[in-house]
């Protein structure tokens, strides 16, 4: 995955040793699933040097979860393209979920784990409130366009920072390809939020309707007209003007 990982634990008892355990878990996952590393199991599967039946349990688990997700998203989620596997659209959320479970097993109740903009949060922040998550603007990486507060759930964002006006179909210069720039999904946990954010983003404008119809999930979609569309239950997570 090769992305920054942030872990914040609110409370005493967290040691360097425990944090190392969490970070080394992400390294293991990267070694196994990275499509950019020649020796990863995914790269070896793609070169047919490894068969799925001989792969590790983690890889078999991800392939099973990916297939289940493919079926529940009408095929919009698919880790296979042109005969090659790329499970990054499901591995990240799953890995964050597992990393958070390491901390939970150690008895921590107030913390978050964030990797590449996807988040699993439990309990409260150092101010004793729910964790505050900023949704980044797809137009300006330094800008936040929404602040939500969450606890005991996951938040994932799929999208692009490319300005919509610049993305045209090369075969038809008048046709805009990319209308939806960013889709943020709040779900019961980060594994669920990540896989459905990935699938829904691939649906274009229908993605937010897919999330609307998914029980236990809320979504916030930003399009190239600088308009945001949100699901009916999203508002209850939103923090207005610094107060909840």
């Amino acid at each position: 995955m090769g992305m920054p990982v942030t872990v914040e634990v609110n409370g005493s008892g967290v040691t360097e040793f425990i944090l190392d355990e969490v970070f080394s878990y992400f390294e293991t996952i990267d070694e196994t699933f990275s499509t950019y590393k020649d020796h990863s199991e995914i790269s070896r599967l793609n070169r047919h040097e490894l068969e799925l039946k001989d792969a590790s349990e983690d890889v078999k688990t991800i392939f099973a979860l990916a297939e289940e997700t493919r079926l529940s998203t009408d095929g919009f989620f698919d880790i296979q393209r042109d005969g090659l596997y790329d499970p990054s659209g499901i591995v990240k959320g799953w890995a964050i979920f597992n990393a958070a479970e390491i901390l939970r097993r150690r008895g921590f109740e107030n913390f978050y784990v964030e990797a590449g903009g996807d988040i699993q949060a439990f309990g409260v922040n150092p101010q004793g409130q729910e964790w505050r998550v900023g949704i980044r603007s797809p137009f300006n990486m330094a800008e936040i366009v929404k602040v939500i507060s969450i606890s005991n759930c996951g938040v994932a964002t799929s999208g692009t920072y490319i300005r919509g006006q610049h993305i045209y179909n090369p075969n038809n210069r008048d046709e805009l390809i990319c209308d939806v720039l960013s889709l943020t999904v709040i779900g019961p946990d980060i594994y669920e939020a990540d896989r459905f954010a990935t699938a829904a983003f691939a649906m274009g404008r229908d993605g937010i309707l897919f999330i609307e119809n998914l029980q236990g999930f809320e979504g916030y979609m930003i399009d190239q007209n600088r308009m945001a569309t949100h699901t009916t239950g999203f508002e209850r997570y939103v923090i207005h003007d610094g107060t909840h």
Partner: protein
Amino acid sequence: MSKSQPQRSFNLNLAINKFLLSAFVVFAFIAYVIHQHFTGANDTQSASSPPVSGLPASQLQPSAPGLNTVNQSAASSSYKNGTYTGPQIDAYYGMVQVEAIVQNGKIADVQFLEYPNDRRTSQRINSIAMPYLQQEAVQAQSANVDMISGATLTSQAFMMSLQSALDSARN
């Protein structure tokens, strides 16, 4: 016998009226459905327009997206004039490939040769009744947050393809 004749014609009139009424109702319903079908998407769009025009001009101008940052850094280093093609990079949703055009030692344009374009519409998803979802103009918020959620996938692929294109343009 003579009495029954007008009675029968009256029944016939009534029957015709009923038929016309129901025909009108059916026609109106079909027209409504067709109208909804063709204008449904437009309704949503028009509802979204007023807040945009109400925004201050400064917020309508996207400030410094990733692409501009690249442009600025390119101005300080010099590139050879020409057109440079980056490699195809996997962005999960599809392959991304860009072409950088360098004029007078600066990036004049960046174009997409390839961009994920397989967002087919789904019969099943479209058949779900369109719920009314609220829209709002995107506005900057205060940055008092514990963490930030944002996208990484496609932008990473874009930057990788562009970087490779620029590497080959370097003097």
